[in-house]
């Protein structure tokens, strides 16, 4: 037989239980729009043994009210994992897509300012020169078109190089490594890893004291979601609610310690200016090059676009293609230019050059051989898209363009056959351009870049759709539904009212007894 006041205690417990339930609804409703918040639930069960002084038989026979077991979070580990995996992939393609679109805009051959257009103008002006080799105005227009062409090459090169430096830095300018996107992302990631270790510590402490630190768990889950944007991370749940984070097989966080962090090391060549290493606070290197581990996520995309993997769309690949084009184009034109005769404008009337190598008349004073049309502005010995420029000899005196063939005589300044050959260099297939013509190479190049860019954009769209579905599934588990909360609110409000009524009734029965005794 329970004590007389047992009912009062019971009702009081019911009141505080309902009060707690309403508090949780309060928290749910308040956090309805908080990112990362998981809906909390009061786990209630029927009390079976409230007091050690009671006879267990009685306990099974009469109602002892309800007790709070715990406050739990709505969470599904499987959905969390699949969401994080999709987040990693999505961010990889998102980053790749942004870069691909930027690269396409830099190397845009569809508008009227690209390389294709300027090459066309250059070849056309040479063809005009072939018809009027004596005409200074036309010679000058060839030079102007050549300057526009080299400037376009240079600008495209610089823009690509800047884009690459912005992503992964440039070893010739050490400052850029620390300012690169890769470096900033890695710093963010390292901070987040430390934060996870820190949260692990607090969670461990609370859990070992028998508490359920829901807010901390939510905070850590959100951090893990964010970390999965950067790198493909493996998450294992350990005892006391802590998590272990690994990149490949390298541990980054274990328990309350950040066991590894990412660090940028300058590469040996500018092909891969930044090398990502994994180190620990003790100073040892856990991975000397994490390129093969970071296959996805934003950092993975940045590493790949800024790297030198020939099977991927890389900035280096684009720059290399442009360099080959610039050097092969210059080579084709220079070979023809140096095999002709220019007009010696220093004599009157003007006459063709008496080249040193192939003189018209070896007994007469000799002229210098025709100079290359295109040269490298930095005298490095190799023409690239970055240094191609019009030889100053030619831009200062357009008569130096060797429009005439070697077969022509002094007075035959009207011979434009060599200029015609230079113009026809546009139809020449060049082995190092894969057997394509200069402009055919640009077409192939545009097609390749377009296809690669389309590919990552398509993947981005697909991943975006998948992630939306996973988010929807997870939200339906962890999110707050207002109707549900309001229903619960009414439920517990009624329950509270009823418990109060019970207490009042018990109190009245006691009063009755006491009055009788009075």
């Amino acid at each position, binding site marked *: 037989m329970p004590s007389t006041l047992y009912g009062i205690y019971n009702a009081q417990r019911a009141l505080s239980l309902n009060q707690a339930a309403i508090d949780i609804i309060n928290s749910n409703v308040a956090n309805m729009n908080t990112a990362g918040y998981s809906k909390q639930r009061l786990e209630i069960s029927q009390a079976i043994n409230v007091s050690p002084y009671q006879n267990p038989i009685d306990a099974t026979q009469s109602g002892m009210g309800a007790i709070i077991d715990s406050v739990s979070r709505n969470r599904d580990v499987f959905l969390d994992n699949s969401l994080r995996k999709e987040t990693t992939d999505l961010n990889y393609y998102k980053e790749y897509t942004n870069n691909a679109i930027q690269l396409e805009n830099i190397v845009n051959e569809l508008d009227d300012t690209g390389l294709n257009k300027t090459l066309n103008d250059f070849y056309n002006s040479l063809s005009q020169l072939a018809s009027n080799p004596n005409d200074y105005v036309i010679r000058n227009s060839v030079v102007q078109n050549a300057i526009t062409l080299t400037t376009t090459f240079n600008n495209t090169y610089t823009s690509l190089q800047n884009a690459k430096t912005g992503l992964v830095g440039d070893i010739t300018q050490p400052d850029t490594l620390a300012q690169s996107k890769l470096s900033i992302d890695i710093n963010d990631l390292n901070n987040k890893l430390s934060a996870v270790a820190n949260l692990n510590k607090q969670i461990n402490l609370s859990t070992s004291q028998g508490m359920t630190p829901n807010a901390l768990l939510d905070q850590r889950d959100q951090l893990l979601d964010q970390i999965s944007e950067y790198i493909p991370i493996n998450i294992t749940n350990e005892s006391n609610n802590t998590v272990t984070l690994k990149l490949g097989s390298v541990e980054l966080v274990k328990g309350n310690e950040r066991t590894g962090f990412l660090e940028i090391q300058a590469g040996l060549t500018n092909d891969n200016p930044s090398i990502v290493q994994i180190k620990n606070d003790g100073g040892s290197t856990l991975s000397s090059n994490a390129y093969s581990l970071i296959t996805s996520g934003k950092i993975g995309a940045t590493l790949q676009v800024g790297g030198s993997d020939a099977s991927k769309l890389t900035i280096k690949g684009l720059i290399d293609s442009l360099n080959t084009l610039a050097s092969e184009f210059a080579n084709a034109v220079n070979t023809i230019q140096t095999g002709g005769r220019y007009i010696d404008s220093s004599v009157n009337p003007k006459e063709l050059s008496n080249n040193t190598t192939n003189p018209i008349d070896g007994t007469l004073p000799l002229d210098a051989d025709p100079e290359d049309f295109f040269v490298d502005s930095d005298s490095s010995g190799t023409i690239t898209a970055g240094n191609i420029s019009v030889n100053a000899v030619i831009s200062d005196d357009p008569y130096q363009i060797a429009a005439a063939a070697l077969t022509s005589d002094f007075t035959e300044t009207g011979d434009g056959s060599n200029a015609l050959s230079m113009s026809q260099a546009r139809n020449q297939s060049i082995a190092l351009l894969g057997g394509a013509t200069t402009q055919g190479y640009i077409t192939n190049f545009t*097609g390749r870049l377009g296809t690669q860019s389309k590919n990552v954009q398509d993947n981005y769209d697909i991943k975006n759709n998948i992630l939306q579905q996973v988010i929807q599934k997870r939200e339906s588990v962890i999110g707050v539904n*207002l109707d549900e909360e309001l229903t619960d609110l009414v439920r517990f409000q009624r329950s509270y009212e009823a418990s109060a009524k019970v207490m009042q009734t018990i109190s009245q029965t006691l009063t009755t007894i006491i009055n009788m005794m009075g």
Partner: protein
Amino acid sequence: MEFTRITNRYTSENIVNNLLINRSKLVNLQEQISSGKRIKKASDDVLASISVVSTNNSLGKIDNYLKNVTNAQGELETAEKALLTSIDSIHTTKELTLQALNASSGPEEMTIINSQIKQIIEQVKDLGNTKYGTTFIFGGLQTEPTPFTSPATGEVQYNGSPDGSHERRVEISDGVTIPVNLSGDAIFGEYYTGDHDNDILTPDTLDGQGLLKTLISLSNELGQANPDKDIIRQQLDNLNTDLQTVLNAQAELGSLSSRLEMTKTNLEDDQLNLTQIKSGAEDIDMAKTISELQFQQTALQASLQVSAQVIQPSLLDYM
């Protein structure tokens, strides 16, 4: 029935997401309509972009070939006019020669005829120095210094590129070139005193060929006190040969002109075709895009309306 637990955070995120997608589609269509272009970068449509880039190449070349053809046609026309005039001159000379051979022609007539022939020699020399723009068209590769000069009275020398290496060619389609000039010495000839064998021992003699040789020889004979009619008659035969040379040259120019005309027509056809291909690849179909735009606008409005209705109600409204 299976149901998904729809949460408020999800509903609002979903709505915002869908509205963003709708809006970006709308803006994309608006951009296409205002620019008139379907593709802005290669990845928008790779095949179409390749076709745009390669037709741009071809169109650039055709543009250039057309300029060359027009230029060449101009030069050929100028040459044709010069040849027509020289044919007239030959006919006049023939008439004058026949007049000179006439038994009744005395020394005064001979002098008058000779002075007329001298005029014709000057005229033929000037024709040889015909210019197209700043270019002497009969000098071969030597287009700037005057090709026909008179080193001495009664002489005309040709200084241009020799017959055979005189051709100036222009490109009229991929890898195809066409000559735009004829050899000046082959048509008009020359006659002057020259040291042809660089030998100072032998006295220099008048030498030359063609029309100018005939004309100058004729003039020289007529200038004699007692002109030899046989020699004059001989020159009449030579004139016929020279006339034939000019007529042949005229025929050659004619065939070049018609070839250019044909090429021009072909190039213009190609240009039209390629422009259509390019336009098909990159231009939008206005009617289609506008109706798509309207469809998209309706879709956006519908989703706005529905979203507003979905967000609003909750149990709260009825408590």
